[in-house]
């Protein structure tokens, strides 16, 4: 979605008469990328659904406070990431549950080639889950969402150099884990 259409959507949302219409259009545009961003972080679909709803409820409530100083998608990612962080703080057992899900996924795969590649994907996810929270977020935003360090910096409120270091350490740890698991 380009910036012009984002600006148009927010002009709709800020007008009380067209707020609902603008909100529905904004959600239709961003619900999928945000869902997968959240799902990668929390793994469980149920948790991802709750966090996605909470994210858009916050967008509905605080839409008037969006000044347009950053891009809409970085603002939305920032809200979603904050909701994920809240979820991690509230549910101390979330990582155990996530590892249980990936273990079940590997256990459910048979021995075919397609299953092997699927198993590789699951192990890759397991390696990401082993990372510290900050490194996991940076890696996901950079590797999957292909955001620039400047954009990630706006989302995570960190300096570009710190993010580069985080990404470097994260990728090294993942490689090490995959070698150990091979």
């Amino acid at each position, binding site marked *: 979605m380009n910036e012009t259409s984002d600006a148009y959507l927010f002009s709709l949302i800020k007008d009380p008469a067209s707020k609902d219409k603008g909100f529905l259009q904004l959600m239709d545009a961003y619900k999928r990328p945000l869902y997968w961003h959240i*799902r990668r972080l929390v793994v469980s679909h149920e948790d991802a659904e709750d966090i996605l709803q909470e994210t858009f*409820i916050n967008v509905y409530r605080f839409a008037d406070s969006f000044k347009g100083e950053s891009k809409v998608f970085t603002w939305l990612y920032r809200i979603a990431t904050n909701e994920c962080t809240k979820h991690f703080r509230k549910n101390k057992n979330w990582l155990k549950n996530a590892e249980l899900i990936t273990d079940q996924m590997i256990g459910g795969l048979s021995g075919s080639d397609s299953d092997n*590649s699927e198993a*590789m994907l699951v192990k890759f996810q397991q390696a990401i889950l082993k990372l510290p929270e900050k490194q996991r977020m940076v890696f996901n935003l950079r590797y999957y969402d292909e955001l620039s360090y400047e954009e990630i910096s706006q989302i995570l409120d960190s300096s570009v150099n710190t993010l580069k270091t985080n990404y470097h350490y994260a990728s090294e740890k993942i490689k090490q884990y995959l070698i150990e698991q091979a």
Partner: protein
Amino acid sequence: MKQQDEFPGIDKKLPYREPVDFFEGLSEKTLQQAKLREQRRRKSLVLWRTVVVAASVSGLALLGYFMPEPEKPEIQQIVQEKLPVEQPQIINQEKAKQPEVAEIPKTATEKVPETIDAKETAVEEIADVLADLSDEELLQLAAMYKADPFKSESEQ
């Protein structure tokens, strides 16, 4: 991409799947939730404002009840502080002045009225006695006065 080279043989897709038709109707459902939350928030805001106003009013009332006149003790203290200093001065002054004013008239006036009063009371007593006497008794008294042997010649 640089990231893809870092992990050869690993796709960027995820091993997770979303439930079928998960995204269908999600926007409308979330909008309803958002509106419902907003209504609840407004209601609770009104409730909280009412509670805060009621609490402040009752707080002020309690404050007023427990501290009715905070200035009174100060006034009493001031009076207590001032009275012992000022009053003795006035009393002393009066006491100091009183002898000068009161002693002079006492010597001049008090003794004279005492003698006049004694004479007046004596005359009054004789008059009362005479008034109480009958005519016969008066005649007897006059006869006794004429025949008094101890009366001097000049008086007779």
